[in-house]
């Protein structure tokens, strides 16, 4: 399936929940309404013509100081999907604000989302509703803040942790 066909398939099914779509040099992207995100992801996985059986990556981006996006929703959570049977890809995004940074968890769809969502929580402070075990993945528990946020001071020193007694 070509990128245009994938987008058309999603548009036919979800219509206005697709806020924005674009294609650039073989990359197919759709920005999805947060409320519909889980449904879109499930449709992508279960619809036989799409067949996105693999969640390649789940990450986020902070648009705090991005030109033109200063007052828009701060974070974008990005899902990179791949279909083994069809050998095609799609990138889905959803936008969340800082004071309401919660996205539905995709763990029930792809178990790999468990660690990826923990990483996004750790680095960006975006929470995932329904995640079975939302702890920090890379940093330690005593760590304060979320280091990949654009307003995290680059030279902030964190408390050192000692060996467990």
């Amino acid at each position: 399936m070509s990128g245009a066909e994938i987008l058309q398939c999603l548009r036919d099914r979800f219509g206005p929940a697709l806020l924005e779509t674009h294609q650039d040099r073989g990359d197919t992207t759709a920005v999805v309404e947060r409320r519909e995100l889980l449904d879109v992801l499930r449709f992508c996985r279960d619809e036989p013509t799409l067949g996105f059986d693999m969640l390649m990556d789940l990450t986020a981006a902070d648009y705090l100081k991005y030109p033109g996006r200063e007052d828009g929703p701060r974070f974008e959570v990005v899902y990179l999907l791949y279909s083994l049977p069809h050998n095609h890809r799609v990138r889905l995004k959803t936008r969340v604000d800082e004071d309401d940074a919660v996205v539905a968890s995709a763990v029930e769809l792809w178990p790999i989302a468990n660690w990826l969502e923990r990483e996004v929580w750790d680095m960006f402070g975006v929470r995932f509703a329904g995640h079975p075990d939302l702890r920090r993945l890379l940093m330690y528990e005593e760590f304060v803040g979320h280091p990949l946020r654009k307003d995290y001071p680059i030279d902030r020193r964190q408390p050192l942790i000692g060996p467990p007694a």
Partner: protein
Amino acid sequence: MGVGSFFTSKLDEAIGWARKYSIFQYPFVTACCGMEYMATACSHYDVDRFGAGLPRFSPRQADVLFVVGTISHKMAPVLKRIYDQMTEPKWVVAFGVCTCTGGFYDNYATVQGIDTIIPVDVYIPGCPPRPESVLDGLMKLQDKIAAQTQRF
């Protein structure tokens, strides 16, 4: 100088001489500096000439801790525990700028110098240090071992 002090000072020297030529290192290798550490250990630079040719991979058998490579905050408790497990007498070498000061990793994840966690005897800067600098640092450590008051 009385007979007693003559005896202990000469004994100190003898033990220092023995200790500086029988360095059993514990290589705590976490990053790219490890390649340079290996180059130093291999035949071309031959660290065995200085009596430091036998790395022990148990801290309980080692007396010089070589911290080779970037130490992250999450690794810091491990390094501290390794140091605590070594028996006296023990020395620590900070190998490479990351262990000396954090190097260019001035960020949220990296310990800004291992001397914030454990005492360090010799700092070998460089990114990574050439084997010549490593051997120079090792010789400085030997001088320090030989010159210090030996406890036993």
